[in-house]
């Protein structure tokens, strides 16, 4: 029996950190190729306009400027970007611009200062066109942005489960509401960046790319440059946060890679914060018209929802967000009948693409807010209505009616734990006492299911290195999640090696042929299981080799406590290091094994969240006093990292619940384009999050892992609006827009007063 300690489950500090805390982490902006040119872009100042003329002479004449590119001079720049859905944006706008920030010309120069000087000198003449800034307005098709597909509604879908809309007739009450979410800009701290260098001799292109998926980027870049895929190497070095927006196609990727090959010059673009606000994809913006049918006792009968997603000028990944919203509408509640109509609509804003949560927060926002409304209108308690409708463990597997089969956990037990931790009756007493003193406290509650993975594959390649360490390569590139530590823990267990003997290499297409990438909280589920499978394969190969070396039959070789020995002769044994030495001596290729885990089964994590807020009625400011989570993480690899994900996600979500909103004026001008206008949560606004665990391994994958990256952010908008309403429950405050900024709260309170 193996008696080695298990690395899985240990709260190990990360192997990645030693370099990062000394300033030695290499991000794309830190890469410098000899003789590189730096790119700056001329971006459209109009949300919708025809380009009538572009004057580039003055820019091109500037000393230090090497080239000025427009789609008029370089035809390849007009081609649609790969992986872009039914309407692909060009690398550079040709005849028309569709959002403020769309690239129109590229300036290449010796450094960024000169490139920006050049960009300032490019003169673009525009003829403004009608601007669409509202999805519901755009859906009327009075102005059609992309005539090639005939309508601004580029994705429409309809889901019916049970008796659909008809079932509303069976309900005692129907609660109706229009609920909205504003536009959120995800804002990782490292802006997008890419640098490429072409070697004309062997026709290879090396690309350093702040991306979440090196293999998908490799395919796109091969298409853009016309190179064979195996002549394109994509490396994601340290990536400074991704949250979804560094996944997928952007004009800058096409520009840098195509131009590097064209000019046979290394080219680099490191976007700045302003560009991040203008041109990086955004998310969340939806308007829902909802009807919830319930019986007198609060049992849900039916949910009917029609919603519009303001998707911006191009498809991006917006249809996926919209469809995933529908999938998440039931949350963890039993809803026998549903009818959902979802419309994803073009407007003149930057495109939507999945941002952390990607439909999960939207769906939960709707059901949780509707339960609050229903409780208030039916005179029920907000706690009781949830308990009554939560799916019970004896109902698993539970089909939601929206393409999910919930399989594990104990939702009512988790929620009960949460209520106990909060001590709701004690809170209610305190709430009343404080209110006498003019202090408004509110309690928000929310439950959420985190649906993760459930599609595709991920591979792991293990190689026994000469010194006996094992290299683990995966295409699942991280952006700070700590995969180099967590995957090492998983492989260390299976290979019975100390964790420091595993070296994880992520984000380099040269190290592994295939991969999908890191998004949707999938990596530990997919690459984690692949790591175990690849380890088993490597052990099998190592046994064969050990059998030869120990002159025994393979079946007689046993692997235990990191030693290969012959059955019954434990004194004759060798470990990985000895094996590696022997392989090196014989000159054979190192032992290596690659395996792939593919699965169509999603995992279903769960969380019960409670927030206590304190609202200052005079300033409209909301502060979080306490935030408690009871969480089902499934099988946990590293609790330090798992909690880090949950806390980080929760605080990020508090931003989109309280502060973060991209505001556009009626001309489609974004008005919030710096951290001064678009406020992220800071250290003083953020609470300490209390996390309690009730972990149920996922039945749908061998190791029992569940996703954890999105857990925190799912309920944030729902729970904060719920809590702020509760702080004014004596005044019947109703909030229907997230975020609840001081200005919006003030408006809502004034509305109540004038009613």
């Amino acid at each position, binding site marked *: 029996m193996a008696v080695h300690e298990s690395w899985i489950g240990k709260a190990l*500090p*990360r192997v*990645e*950190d*030693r370099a*990062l*805390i*000394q*300033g*030695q*982490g*290499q*991000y794309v*902006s*830190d890469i*410098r190729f000899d003789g590189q040119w730096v790119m700056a872009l001329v971006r459209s100042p109009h949300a919708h306009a025809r380009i009538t003329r572009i004057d580039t002479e003055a820019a091109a004449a500037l000393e230090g400027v090497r080239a000025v590119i427009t789609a008029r001079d370089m035809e390849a720049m007009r081609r649609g970007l790969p992986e872009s859905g039914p309407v692909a944006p060009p690398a550079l706008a040709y005849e028309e611009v569709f959002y403020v920030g769309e690239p129109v010309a590229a300036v290449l120069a010796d*450094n*960024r*200062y000169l490139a920006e000087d050049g960009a300032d000198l490019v003169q673009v003449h525009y003829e403004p066109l009608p601007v669409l800034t509202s999805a519901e307005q755009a859906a009327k098709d009075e102005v059609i942005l992309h005539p090639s597909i005939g309508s601004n509604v580029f994705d429409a879908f309809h889901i019916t489960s049970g008796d659909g809309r008809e079932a509303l007739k069976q309900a005692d009450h129907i609660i109706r509401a229009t609920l909205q979410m504003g536009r959120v800009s995800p*804002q*990782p*701290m*490292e*802006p997008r960046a890419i640098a490429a260098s072409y070697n004309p001799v062997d026709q290879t292109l090396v690309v350093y790319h702040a991306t979440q998926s090196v293999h998908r980027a490799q395919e796109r870049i091969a298409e853009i440059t016309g190179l064979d895929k195996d002549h394109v190497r994509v490396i994601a070095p*340290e*990536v*400074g*946060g991704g*949250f979804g927006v560094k996944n997928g196609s952007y004009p800058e990727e096409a520009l840098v890679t195509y131009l590097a090959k064209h000019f046979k010059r290394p080219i680099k673009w490191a976007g*700045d*914060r*302003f560009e991040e606000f203008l041109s990086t994809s955004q998310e969340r913006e939806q308007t829902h018209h909802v009807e919830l049918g319930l019986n007198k006792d609060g049992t849900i009968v039916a949910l009917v929802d029609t919603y519009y997603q303001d998707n911006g000028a191009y498809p991006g990944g917006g249809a996926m967000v919209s469809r995933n919203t529908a999938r998440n509408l039931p949350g963890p509640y039993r809803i026998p009948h549903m009818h959902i109509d979802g419309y994803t609509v073009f407007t003149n804003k930057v495109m939507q693409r999945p941002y952390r949560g990607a439909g999960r927060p939207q769906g939960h926002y709707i059901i949780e807010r509707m339960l609050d409304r229903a409780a208030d209108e039916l005179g029920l308690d907000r706690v009781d209505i949830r308990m009554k409708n939560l799916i019970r463990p004896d109902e698993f597997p539970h089909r939601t009616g929206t393409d999910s089969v919930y399989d594990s956990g104990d939702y009512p037990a988790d929620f009960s734990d949460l209520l106990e931790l909060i001590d709701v009756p004690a809170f209610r007493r305190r709430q009343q006492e404080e209110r006498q003193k003019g202090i408004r406290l509110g309690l928000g509650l929310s439950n959420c299911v985190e649906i993760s993975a459930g599609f595709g594959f991920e591979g792991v390649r293990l190689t026994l290195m000469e010194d006996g360490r094992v290299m683990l390569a995966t295409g699942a590139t991280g*952006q*700070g*999640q*700590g995969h180099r530590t967590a995957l090492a823990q998983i492989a260390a267990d299976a290979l019975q090696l100390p964790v420091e003997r595993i070296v994880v290499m992520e984000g380099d297409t040269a190290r592994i042929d295939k991969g999908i990438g890191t998004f949707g909280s999938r990596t530990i589920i997919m690459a984690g299981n692949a790591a175990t499978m690849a380890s088993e394969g490597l052990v099998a190969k190592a046994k064969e080799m050990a059998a030869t070396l120990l002159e025994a039959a393979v079946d007689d070789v046993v692997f235990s406590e990191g030693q290969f020995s012959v059955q019954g002769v434990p004194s004759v044994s060798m470990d990985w290091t000895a094996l590696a030495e022997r392989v090196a001596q014989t000159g054979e290729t190192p032992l290596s094994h690659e395996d792939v885990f593919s699965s169509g089964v999603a995992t279903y994590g769960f969380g019960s969240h409670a927030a206590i807020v304190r609202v200052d009625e005079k300033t409209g400011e909301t502060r979080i006093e306490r935030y408690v989570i009871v969480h089902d993480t499934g099988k946990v690899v590293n609790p*330090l*990292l798992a909690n*880090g994900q949950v*806390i*980080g*996600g*929760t*605080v*990020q979500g508090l931003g989109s619940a309280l502060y973060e909103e991209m505001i556009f004026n009626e001309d489609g001008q974004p008005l919030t384009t*710096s*951290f*001064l206008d678009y406020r*992220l*949560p*800071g*250290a*003083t606004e*953020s609470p*300490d*999050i209390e996390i309690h665990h009730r972990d149920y391994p996922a039945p749908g994958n061998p190791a029992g892992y569940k996703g954890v990256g999105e857990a*925190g952010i799912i309920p944030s908008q729902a729970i904060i609006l719920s809590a702020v309403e509760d702080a004014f429950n004596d005044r019947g405050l109703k909030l229907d827009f997230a975020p609840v900024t001081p200005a919006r709260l003030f408006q809502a309170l004034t509305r109540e007063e004038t009613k």
Partner: protein
Amino acid sequence: MPNITLTVNGTQHHLDVEPRWLLADVLREQLNLTGTHLGCEQGVCGACTILLNGRPARSCLTLAVTADGADIVTVEGLAKDGELHPVQEAFWQEHALQCGFCTPGFLMTSVHFLNENPNPTRPEIREALSGNLCRCTGYQHIVNAVERAAETMRKGANHAISQD
């Protein structure tokens, strides 16, 4: 082009710099000290924080020429002879970083803060960090790390990082 003198992490440099170049760009591109990060160039995120004559400063808002003669410490100057500064060690142990992009700025801010206030409360730590943004961690583990570093530094030797 003006010639300036900067002492960076104990080493003196004579540099020709263009008047409009930011100190951050000079550190990153001329001295190859890329640990100082640019997160916003708007003076808000704090990723570019360095110690300028012993005080935290935003190198994205400082023109290099105005720093002529200055004594500068960047994140690369915190560890001594391979030994991590207690603040670095604490960030590591407490999992106070995920992507690490904001981390150099938080480290520099925290080092200075703990020199000024060796025994801070959690709210004081949060206040001290309010000029730095982190999108990944939610701050909680960073606050834990600063608490832990304070404790180590109170117990331990002198961790002054001034140059002379």
